[in-house]
């Protein structure tokens, strides 16, 4: 194998599994250490810099970081990365003075952002500090987009949204135009904005199309419309018996909301198997914990009604069959149909993009799925000064992706407005710093906790089911947060090897608790992976290969389950191993504007 090229920041970035998996590349271990140190405000700022909504995301993020977390590969569960973020938000001091300042002097450029969801708000946050005159339009009465209109209050209190949206919209540079629907992109472009960002989300719910649905329409509600109406407090009750159709997170929010608005027998019905449901495991758990059964392999067949009133639904029982290519097909199981009586049906079977307000004759091209044609990196559309992001760009995703798009779009818009090449992307900010303080002393806490994941305290269901606004999760207190934070392995503290110093004493090999280091004759990667002290079967994880040793062998370190404990460096007589903290901040318009606080 070729020796590892350490000059590219992506090598060490990939080792920090959580940060690599996070669409916004939040420096996770950095903020987790700050939480351990009780520096909640600093931890909040590290988050705010990269993901803009720490309080919101600390309660609602889809957390792609957690399945990626290294801890999950050496024991049962990953670090509770997401809920630790909330701890930073819950315990911080006033941060206003530390937010990127908005200059009084404007740069003469005006940009319009359509929608006040997380993608647009991120663009606003990144552009206002550069002197842009930012205008945000939303059809609704407040900012936050779906975070405000869709996510139920028992998961995300309104005050948290208001606070974090306020950090963007209330500090100057950003003018909000709420209750203002944009009906024509052509018209908006004619107003002479230097650039337009479309962050209008994917606002249309897919309808139920089975016999009887028309007739019983009064009690069949589109999930996302119904949730919005609940959020706006237009809807305050529902029938006692409710069926929720669909297996995604929207369905989970619908059923749990229904339980709080008077639904006594609420069940979720999904076409697929329980395992394949789109909803996150923890959302399913929370729903079942509230007494909501999830019935699987049932396909809607008919809506039952008498005298124009919904009475129930009939489902066909199916089973999964797989063809040679492993593709799944749902086929009738032959069992009798299942009838479930109900008073209301909530339909959460999918969400679509819709751009009725974008004229098709302005040069903005769409693909065959009705999505705008975009450059995937710059998010620029076929109209050069129109950019997209969030759910509007590539279909429904989640908040953290919307934020990541927002940062990229802001970079593009800035470059575009400054007359620069939009495709030339700036480099991330990267730093490496040795953690060595003495012979065996490190400036990070290298002890490895063996505690299992701590559960986040929940309110008693009998309490929380009483009100749609009562927050179910109470969050970690400081003591639990400290213990959970200790589970983080500090994967950003990298093992860096200097072959010229190594005397091949095997000290590091012998001490490594996870058998990650081997000195061996060099071979091709596949052969090497099986020749190591412990097999390196996880091919998603790199082998760190270094040559230049006296015996002609190579040092091979399997990054997969390294605990970043620093024992290799402690046992090395010559300092050939060093523990160096890798810090990476993705390129943003605001890089450098904020003093690096915590490093």
């Amino acid at each position, binding site marked *: 194998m070729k020796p590892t090229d350490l000059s590219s920041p992506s090598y060490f970035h990939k080792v920090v599994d959580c940060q690599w998996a996070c669409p916004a590349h939040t420096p996770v271990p950095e903020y987790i250490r700050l939480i351990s140190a009780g520096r909640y405000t600093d931890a909040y700022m590290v988050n705010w810099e990269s993901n803009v909504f720490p309080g919101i995301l600390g309660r609602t993020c889809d957390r792609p970081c957690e399945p990626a977390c290294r801890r999950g*590969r*050496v*024991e049962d569960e990953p670090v509770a990365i997401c809920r630790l973020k909330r701890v930073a938000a819950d315990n911080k001091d006033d941060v206003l003075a530390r937010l990127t300042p908005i200059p009084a002097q404007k740069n003469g450029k005006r940009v319009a952002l359509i929608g006040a969801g997380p993608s647009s708000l991120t663009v606003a946050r990144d552009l206002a500090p550069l002197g842009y005159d930012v205008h945000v339009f939303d059809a609704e009465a407040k900012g936050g987009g779906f975070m405000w209109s869709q996510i139920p209050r028992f998961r995300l209190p309104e005050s948290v949204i208001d606070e974090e949206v306020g950090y963007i919209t209330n500090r100057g540079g950003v003018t909000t135009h709420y209750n203002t629907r944009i009906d024509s992109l052509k018209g908006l472009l004619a107003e002479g904005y230097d650039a337009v960002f479309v962050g209008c989300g994917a606002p249309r719910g897919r309808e139920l199309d089975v016999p009887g649905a028309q007739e019983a329409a009064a009690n069949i509600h589109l999930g996302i419309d119904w949730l919005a109406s609940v959020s706006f407090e237009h809807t305050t009750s529902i029938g006692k018996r409710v069926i929720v159709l669909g297996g995604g997170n929207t369905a989970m929010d619908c059923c749990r909301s229904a339980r709080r608005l008077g639904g006594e027998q609420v069940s979720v019905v999904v076409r697929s198997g329980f395992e394949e449901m789109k909803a996150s495991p923890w959302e399913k758990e929370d729903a079942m914990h509230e007494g909501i059964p999830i019935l699987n392999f049932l396909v809607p067949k008919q809506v039952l009604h008498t005298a124009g009133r919904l009475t129930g639904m009939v489902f066909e029982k199916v089973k999964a069959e797989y063809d040679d290519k492993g593709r799944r097909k749902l086929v009738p199981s032959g069992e009798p149909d299942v009838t479930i009586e109900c008073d209301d049906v909530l339909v959460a079977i999918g969400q679509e993009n819709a751009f009725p307000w974008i004229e098709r004759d302005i040069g903005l091209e769409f693909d065959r799925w009705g999505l705008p044609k975009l450059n995937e990196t710059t998010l620029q559309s076929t109209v050069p000064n129109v950019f997209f992001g969030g759910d509007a760009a590539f279909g429904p995703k989640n908040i953290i992706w919307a934020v990541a798009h927002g940062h990229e779009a802001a970079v593009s818009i800035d470059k575009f407005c400054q007359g620069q090449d939009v495709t030339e992307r700036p480099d991330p900010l990267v730093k490496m710093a040795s953690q060595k303080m003495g*012979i*065996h*002393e490190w400036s990070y806490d*290298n*002890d*490895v906790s*063996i505690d299992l994941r701590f559960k986040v305290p929940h309110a008693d269901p009998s309490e929380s089911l009483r009100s749609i606004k009562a927050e179910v999760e109470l969050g970690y207190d400081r003591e639990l947060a400290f213990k959970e934070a200790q589970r983080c392995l500090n994967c950003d503290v990298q093992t860096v090897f200097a072959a010229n110093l190594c*005397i*091949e*004493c*095997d*000290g590091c*090999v*012998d*001490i490594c*608790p*996870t*058998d*990650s280091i081997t000195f061996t004759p060099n071979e091709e990667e596949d052969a090497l992976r099986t020749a190591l002290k*412990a*097999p390196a*079967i996880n091919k998603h994880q790199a082998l760190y290969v270094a040559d230049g040793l*006296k*015996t002609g062998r190579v040092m091979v370190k399997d990054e997969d*389950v390294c*605990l970043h*404990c*620093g*024992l290799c460096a*402690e*046992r*090395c*007589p*010559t300092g050939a191993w060093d523990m160096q903290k890798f810090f990476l901040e993705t390129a943003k318009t605001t890089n450098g504007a904020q003093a690096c606080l915590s490093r």
Partner: protein
Amino acid sequence: MSYLKPALKHPGLPKNKLGFTRRDYEGSISTLCAGCGHDSISASIIQSVWELGIEPHRVAKVSGIGCSSKTPDYFLSASHGFNSVHGRMPSVLTGANLANRELIYLGVSGDGDSASIGIGQFAHLMRRGVNMTYIVENNGVYGLTKGQFSATSDKGSKAKKGAINTDEPIDLVAMALQLGATYVGRSFSGDKTQLVPLIMGALSHQGVALIDCISPCVAFNNHEGSTKSYDYVREHNESVNKLDVILGRAPITAEYAPGEVTEVAQHDGSVLRLRKLHEDYDPTDRVAAMNYLARHKAMGEIVTGLLFVDPDPEDLHASLGTVATPLNQLNDDVLVPGAAALEKLNAALR
């Protein structure tokens, strides 16, 4: 400074026939200098006992005094252990072995512990053929007392501060051969592929087995001019054979030229499969081995490998005709047969 090795381990670690991973055979974290060869020997012992599938409680580790003699704390924490006095491991171990022959005895010592203060004890243990594995972690110095030359230090070898050793060295391998040891090997802490099978073979050998393992002292004897440094040993290491210890009857899978492979069946059922690296080396001929070693030593080579093995060893119990049952399993009436029995014995000797 870390005092504990994290309990988390590689999820893909193989298990031995008892269901244990290598990590179940560890001890506490080493307090020796970082880079000490002794730590690699500890790791090799762990690997060997794990591979042999020995229950840790069946092993008794006995040592003397020195950095090397401290190491039994760093492996097999579930085994029996006795850290004795300087140079006295052989007598303590001999006593233990006589009292209970069912344990597997592992003596760990240093070159000072064995060749300086303990040379007498070393010699007599070898002569008597105590069934044990004797590992000398040989660094040429008294590591624990800060690097004085030991009795295995080569003549002309230079100390860290520049002093030259003027005394002839004791070659423990040559002595063991001369004194009748039935399994004799030499190895290097920096070569686990050689050392691990040697230890495995020694542990399964039913007689006295000596392994002289050169083990660089990074603090006091790893400099230019030392003959026990990593660099010097790597440059002068001449391995005469390559050993595989076959447990259960595994067929030969690789193709070997005739005469290239020798197999030695041991009494416990294991087979020592030796592949020749030096054509004229025969590890079953004691006198030839002694000659070979003397010749090659004069050429400046450090000869390593399994240097001698007697497939039919006899041990001290056999020559003394002792009772097979461990003394702690015998009742008082057997252990103290009384005045009449003593009288009878005395009469027989008159």
